[in-house]
């Protein structure tokens, strides 16, 4: 049977792509080391943990899904996930490998658990997946992507949004889906997005480091307390676009209660509160 062997929460942002693509010298510069250094730690940890699959809870930014039919939850059941063209040409990465068998199993299990997800046999992933993922899951040169993924998209951009409590329960249902999979796979669950950022209005560019760090503390120590926050509170605390943190909450919901934070890093820079947190699961 499959097991959940760890969790990762990571911000996603186009800026992370620009810096990654600019090369090692820029990544390790004084300006970006506070973000990319911790990502290297996570890559090393993952190398040691050697998971077989990553289930990535993320959100799309109108690169795959559009307002003509916007899914509240959408799950990939494909064997490959091409990189979306977000309007500037797609980044030159090969398609990410998937696992249709695990995807379909998760689909059945989530529907059985009353999460009636949109099932996607074709899905292009945008920076919600591929801004953090190369830092931990990609070998430059011949190697390419290392670990097959199953993407699970959450609507965090068109209100009404699934509540923080609902996203927590989605994570718990995802855990049951993984634990009931027949193959002996080691799975790490990833939640991407946030932390604080505001991209519209007079507060454009506002970052709130105190709240971001409190969020990561609560996620580690009292994750269920975060299910009691309303979207109004989350928006006032971290900005309109910061509600992506519910993806982290779903990730945490998929881990056992006693999962322990291992790497916790935070860097408020320019218009983003960048967060990175990994969770260790006892064997």
């Amino acid at each position, binding site marked *: 049977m499959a097991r959940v062997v760890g969790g990762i929460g990571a911000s996603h942002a*186009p800026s992370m792509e620009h810096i990654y693509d600019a090369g090692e010298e820029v990544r390790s510069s004084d300006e970006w080391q506070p973000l990319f250094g911790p990502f290297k730690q996570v890559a090393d940890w993952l190398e040691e943990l050697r998971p077989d699959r990553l289930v990535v809870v993320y959100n799309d930014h*109108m690169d795959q899904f559009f307002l003509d039919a916007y899914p509240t939850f959408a799950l990939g059941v494909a064997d490959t996930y091409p990189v979306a063209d977000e309007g500037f040409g797609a980044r030159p990465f090969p398609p990410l490998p998937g696992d249709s068998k695990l995807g379909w199993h998760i689909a059945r299990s989530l529907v059985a658990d009353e999460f009636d997800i949109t099932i996607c046999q074709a899905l292009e992933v945008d920076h919600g997946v591929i801004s953090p993922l190369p830092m931990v899951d990609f070998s430059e040169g011949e190697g390419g992507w290392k670990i097959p993924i199953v993407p699970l998209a959450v609507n965090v951009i068109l*209100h009404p949004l699934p*509540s923080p409590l609902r996203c927590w329960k989605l994570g718990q249902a995802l855990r049951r889906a993984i634990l009931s999979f027949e193959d002996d796979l080691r799975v790490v669950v990833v939640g991407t997005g946030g932390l604080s950022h505001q991209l519209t*209005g*007079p*507060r454009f560019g506002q970052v709130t480091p105190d709240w971001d760090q409190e969020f990561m503390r609560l996620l580690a120590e009292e994750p269920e307390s975060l299910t009691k926050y309303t*979207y*109004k509170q989350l928006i006032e605390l971290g900005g309109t676009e910061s509600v992506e943190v519910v993806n982290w909450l779903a990730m945490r919901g998929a881990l056992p209660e006693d999962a322990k934070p291992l790497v916790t890093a935070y860097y408020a820079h320019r218009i983003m509160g960048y967060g990175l947190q990994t969770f260790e699961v006892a064997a």
Partner: protein
Amino acid sequence: MELTQDYLARLDAVQPKELPSDLDLFDEATATRGIRLNKAAYSLKDEPQRDLFHKDEEAWMEQFGLTDEEKDLVRRRDWIGLWRAGMSIYVMVKLSGVTDTPLPEIGKQMRESGGANG
């Protein structure tokens, strides 16, 4: 009563009401108002649409049934006007791409905008 406190709390949880005036949402009102502009800007994720935009911006706009006011907002690169007309920031960045407008420039205008309602 059928509409329990629990139900009402759930209903309340999925969408904020009465945000401070310097914060905004993408919701029923904006999605409805911006339906044409969002469709137009979303199209720019496809390269042939970007090519058409560069070659003949008016012909590009014709495809989406934009109103005269909406076309004018696009022509004038009026980012605050487009935002108030319901354009989502996530498709606005695609329009900013084809018009070579850096996000910090849009951000500067946002900060000076006085809010979604002016």
